[in-house]
């Protein structure tokens, strides 16, 4: 059972980490855009 939980937990963690990266990069780009406009 721990192996199964690990597989699903890793999947959730990777997808969540990538989503958070996109969100952080978007916020940074928006801040940059406001600074240059």
């Amino acid at each position, binding site marked *: *059972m721990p*192996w*199964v939980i*690990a*597989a*699903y937990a*890793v*999947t959730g963690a*990777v*997808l969540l980490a*990538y*989503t958070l990266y*996109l969100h952080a*990069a*978007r916020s940074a*780009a*928006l801040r*940059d*855009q406001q600074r*240059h*406009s």
Partner: protein
Amino acid sequence: MVSAVVMLSVVGALAWLLWVSRDVERRIGSARWVGALALVLIPIWLWLVAYYAPLEEIQGIFQKIFYVHIPAIIPTYFGFILTALGGIQYLRTRQERWDQLAVSGAEVGVVFCTLMLVVGPIWAKPVWGLWWVWDARLTTTLILWFIYVAYLFLRSFAFGSDTARTYTAVYGIVGVSAIPFVYYAVDLAHGAAMHPANPAKEGLPPEMGQTVGVGMVTFIWIFAWLVAKRCELGSLQARVLASRMGAA
């Protein structure tokens, strides 16, 4: 029936991505509906994995890992095919949106390919007793991962340059030719591969097939949502770069 729904999802997701990428800043709002669809599908898929799909006789509970490992294949291939498609269209039209779509497909495809490569060994260790074997499927999948990681490196080293866009477009078109080698790796190995054959070939009991199918549909829409969000980010970054260059 299951494969028809999966196919329909692929076509639907592709059509939506092409529509969004046409004017990403205005049309990205529709991504909230795609995100909501994925959020509805995730608990349904997990419920099917936990309660609907029967326990496999030989592997027991470890076989449940297949329901996350196999569905990750579709977004991986989808992403890299999108990179090739975006590359062809970029070389033809020189429109930036195709380049954004190509990069987004590669990046999100690498995320799902990484998942496949990480989750596979989590299944292999308890079942084979080994984390990794250098068999045809595993090795070709790792090579595929390296091909697209190299694509992303190539892009990051030359951000915003037309030459980089052209080179990476060609690279993405050539790189996609690795997919058939990965897909048919087990057949090409003539029985020398440890990795199981493609489920489509082996056939699965209906409950298992339906669970894999729902997993695939879930991952396709998560993939589409991530690609659209990555396209939006690329478009924003390109605009910031243009305004910086204008100010300099």
